[in-house]
């Protein structure tokens, strides 16, 4: 165990009933970086994230958080080190943004210490970092999709953890808001060195924002590393079962995956790939 790991899994096996989803996985997630899980639908990337977040008990094996087995830590201790934002969370009708963000301080509250100035400060900082100060008295259900997601991210920030896990934080958002959310997470990582682990569907955005890509296939990690080192036609074909060309993102230089397929091709002899 080196100091460079935020999270590790040891011999981790996950299952739903008798169906094995992840099999004897040893994974290491570097500290202070953005790690993105990719893989086809149903490959188990969300399941893996949920299990790291202790929302799902493993069949066998262990998840280590900063070197300690997560199952042996008290759940509130874990919540002070690692936050999880599940996929499309839903707030009760009528909950305001401020009330939502305040709940992020739950792991710090005890019988003796209900609400402190530090709690107040962390909540204010979280609202500021996500640009939600103006909207703090609005109810969560009255917000647009992008604002709502920022409110939830503000809640996880109020939790003041070194590690933040997010399960598909950009689902159901239009492109503008996808970029907005990912930029926000990128900045959090840059400025505060928070470890960010997320599941993303968009491979190209994953390549742009991740320091570390984990491609999951057949209950195993198929490849892991910097996007520019691991993403190529062979990997996409293997992991997603899709033919594509990988070129360079003209703005960022990161890998850009362009799928083959049908569609309205206006270039002669391109578009559809003959095997």
């Amino acid at each position, binding site marked *: 165990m080196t100091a460079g790991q935020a999270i590790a899994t040891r011999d981790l096996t996950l299952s*739903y009933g008798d169906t094995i989803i992840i099999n004897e996985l040893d994974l290491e997630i570097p500290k202070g970086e953005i790690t993105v899980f990719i893989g086809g639908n149903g490959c188990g990337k969300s399941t893996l994230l949920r299990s790291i977040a202790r*929302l799902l008990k493993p069949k066998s094996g262990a998840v280590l958080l900063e070197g300690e087995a997560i199952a042996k830590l008290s759940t509130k201790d874990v919540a002070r080190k690692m*936050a*999880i934002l*599940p996929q499309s969370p839903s707030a*009760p009708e*009528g*909950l305001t943004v401020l*009330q939502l963000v305040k709940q992020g301080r*739950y792991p710090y509250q005890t019988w003796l210490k209900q609400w402190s100035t530090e709690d107040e400060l962390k909540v204010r900082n979280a609202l500021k970092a996500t640009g939600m100060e103006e909207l703090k008295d609005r109810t969560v259900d009255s917000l647009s999709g992008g604002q709502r997601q920022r409110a939830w991210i503000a809640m996880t920030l109020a939790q003041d953890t070194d590690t933040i896990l997010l399960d598909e934080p950009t689902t159901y958002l239009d492109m503008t808001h996808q970029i907005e959310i990912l930029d926000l997470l990128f900045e959090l990582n840059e400025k505060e060195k928070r470890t960010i682990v997320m599941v993303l569907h968009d491979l190209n955005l994953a390549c742009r924002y991740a320091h570390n890509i984990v491609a999951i296939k057949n209950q195993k990690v198929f490849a892991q590393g910097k996007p520019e080192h691991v993403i190529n036609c062979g990997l996409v074909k293997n992991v997603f079962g899709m033919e594509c060309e990988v070129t360079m993102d003209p703005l960022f230089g990161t890998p850009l995956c362009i799928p083959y397929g049908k569609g309205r091709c206006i270039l002669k002899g391109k578009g559809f790939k003959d095997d």
Partner: protein
Amino acid sequence: MLLKTNSLRWAGLFAAALLLLVLMSFSIVYGYTDTTWKMAIDAFTNFDGTNEHIIIQSVRLPRALIAAAVGASLAIAGVLLQSLTKNPLAAPEIFGINAGAGFAVVITVTLFSISNLQVFTWVSFLGAAVSFIFVYIIGSIGREGLTPMKLTLAGAAMSAMFASMTQGFLVINETALEQVLFWLAGSVSGRKLETLASVFPYLLAGWIFSLIIAGKLNVLSMGEDVAKGLGLKTGLLKLGAGIVIVLLSGGAVAVAGPIGFLGIVIPHLTRAVVGIDHRWVIPYAGLLGGMLLLIADIASRYIIMPQEVPVGVMTAVIGTPFFVYIARRGFNK
């Protein structure tokens, strides 16, 4: 939301407590037997053994106290159930609690020929508890543990089963029907103070414990995964809330029989007044529940005087239109 700031909410809480006391004194003074405020005061300070004084002490007072305690308990149980199941129509009666209690009482009457209110109290408490524990266990079977959907389905199934078995027993045994019919309609009259005293510790424990878990229920209301992520032991909280529900609704049904609709109506009314923070909703629901049952009980004395309408019928008359309103509002969303 009517009361937006905490100082307004404290003031409202104080006003509601005061109003509850006023309604309790109304319940003591007004009814078929003509009594005055002076008589009511004399009955406690200067008891002279007249008929009016006896009625005030041994009929009206227990009735007022029981209405307040039962109303508060049913309302708080409704808040907890709606929160636990994320179902806006949840209330003790939909989770087999009333049906279980009713069945237990009917069994006692038909099989053991006992028709004593004091015996009914314990039997119905037991029936309510057993029924809800069954519902809870059935709702917890499976990998994800207790889910709102499974709990609701289990409650509906148990209710239907106990209700039809109750009817079956009553059809066979007509004399039992007469004896339990008034109990089955729900009422706070004709009970002795001892009846309330025997279950009061359970109700009190339920009230206190529900206030203790209120903050945690706020966390749970953001969803199981979010709550677990924040370090809440959701399984333990749900079990604790389940126990409180049994104490409150079991205790209430034991004293007053199955009184419906309070558990549905009051939580919604309360949220309209103070918002969704359980730390406010629970105390307010308790006070408003007590107030509504007192009002329904006082009204029940005047509608077909000199006869009385069972208060369970009154709450149903008030509650049904409200129920329809909630259901429609829910579907339109």
